[in-house]
């Protein structure tokens, strides 16, 4: 995941590299996601996550589009 100064720069980068635009979040949004995703990473109790647990974190962060789900 790369950092950009604005959405305009993302458009330029995607065009230059012939890549489709993915999902774009603000640093504020990713900061909130990080708190949910990484808060227990150093803990002995952290044993990885299931797809369902990951999707629940995305939901809590307000990320509910198909981009954040695995089709089952």
């Amino acid at each position: 995941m790369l950092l950009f100064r604005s959405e305009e720069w993302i458009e330029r980068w995607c065009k230059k590299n012939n890549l489709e635009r993915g999902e774009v979040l603000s640093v504020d949004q990713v900061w909130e996601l990080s708190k949910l995703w990484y808060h227990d990473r150093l803990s002995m109790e952290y044993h990885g996550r299931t797809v369902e647990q990951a999707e629940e974190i995305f939901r809590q962060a307000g990320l509910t589009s198909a981009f954040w789900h695995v089709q089952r």
Partner: protein
Amino acid sequence: MSNNALLWQIRAFVYNHFADTIRPPSVEEAAQHLNIEIELAGTLYKELHNRHALFLEPETLNIRMANPFSGIPTDFKVHADGKSYYANCAWDMLGIPVALALRNDAVIEAICTESDDRVQLAVRDGQIQAQAAVPGGDIKSILTSDLKIHFPLPFARWYDDLLFT
């Protein structure tokens, strides 16, 4: 101790070693810490790689990523607890202060893709603020809501090519 218990014990050791020393432990260091054979430690490293709990350099037992920590220099540097860490990506640069349990404030230095703007983010009391260098060398405050992070692949494809993701 079962190999499954050892698996999660060695995972925790890798992460805390990264947090304490800013670098990943070698398989020899992990074996010594857990008082196990180096061969077993290597098997556990590979199993953690297979489970996406860390990422080994191809054909080696060297840890390249234990997200959010990076084993190699990147464009995302995090200063916290008197140490300087490298993050794997723009998401992980925010993940490091969180993984360190926000024990202290942090400063993140990052380079914006394409525009090459240098950005500094300050984490204070769990809040985040940003400023950017502008032509002429001056610094100006910018809104963190204006800075964008691009997720190129949907969640379902993140582990197809982790380096690209």
